[in-house]
């Protein structure tokens, strides 16, 4: 983290190009491949995680500042919590007799 960097912001440009590329790749995988639906979901899901990481590290500079480690811990635990909420909810509400369909 430098206060002054007159250099061209390469990391931003690289991040931008990568996120556009991942978006197009995801569309390609979704519509132009013969993978099974769940494989597609895994692949585009991983692409989404890559893109989120690009935003966090290349645009939002999550690790900078005195609280870099705390920020990482905060975001990391929020992500774990998000996974608990999403997968927990799906598991609880779609297994057993509660399954509505």
């Amino acid at each position, binding site marked *: 983290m430098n*206060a002054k960097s007159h250099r061209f912001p390469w990391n931003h440009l690289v991040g*931008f190009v990568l*996120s556009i590329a991942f978006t197009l790749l995801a569309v390609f995988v979704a519509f132009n491949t013969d993978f099974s639906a769940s494989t597609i979901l895994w692949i585009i899901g991983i692409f*989404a995680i890559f893109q989120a990481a690009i935003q966090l590290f290349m645009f939002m500079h999550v690790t900078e500042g005195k*609280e870099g480690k705390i920020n990482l811990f905060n975001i990391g635990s929020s992500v774990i919590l998000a996974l608990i909420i999403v997968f927990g*909810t799906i598991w609880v509400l779609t297994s057993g007799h509660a399954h509505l*369909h």
Partner: protein
Amino acid sequence: MTSQTTPLEYKSHQSQMNILGFWVFLGAEIVLFSTLFASYFILEHNTAAGPSGQDIFILKDVLIETFLLLTSSFTCGLAIHSMRNHDKKGLLIWMIVTLLLGAGFLYMEINEFIHYIHEGATIQTSGFTAAFFTLLGTHGAHVTFGVFWIIMLLIQLVRRGITEKTSSKLFIASLYWHFLDVVWIFIFTFVYLKGMVM
């Protein structure tokens, strides 16, 4: 990290706390959106004889929205880069570009919603539409709030220039804006692509 290389927005103790506090708030936002996603996944197939995602989603419009928002996140990053170079004009211009791209995104999204309503998918139609419109609407409301928020900050920037306070405020708004892009990526992947493919 010495005082020479510390960016202006981190200079005062209060600014450091504001930025940290906003990161904690973003943690809460992650939980909020993951709850919206979880509910969407439970309800997405419950279309109650109404249209499903596959019936109404249009890839082209969604891609345009995605590119608008991705680009706005990039220009927002450039704005903060300019700010760190004490380039007030660059900061102002890139932020305005960001806002215009954000407004373009909102225009597309509102049109998309009107299209869905014409197709017979209102928020009252089914469990699916309720969860869909609430997830998308919450994100859209965040973008709308962000646009007005950044306009307020730009007025302060013009009046006061790049100071410890204005820079930390704009930096926080930029975090918010990038975060909305992160949320959109997941909406794009797990609502639109998943809805159209599966």
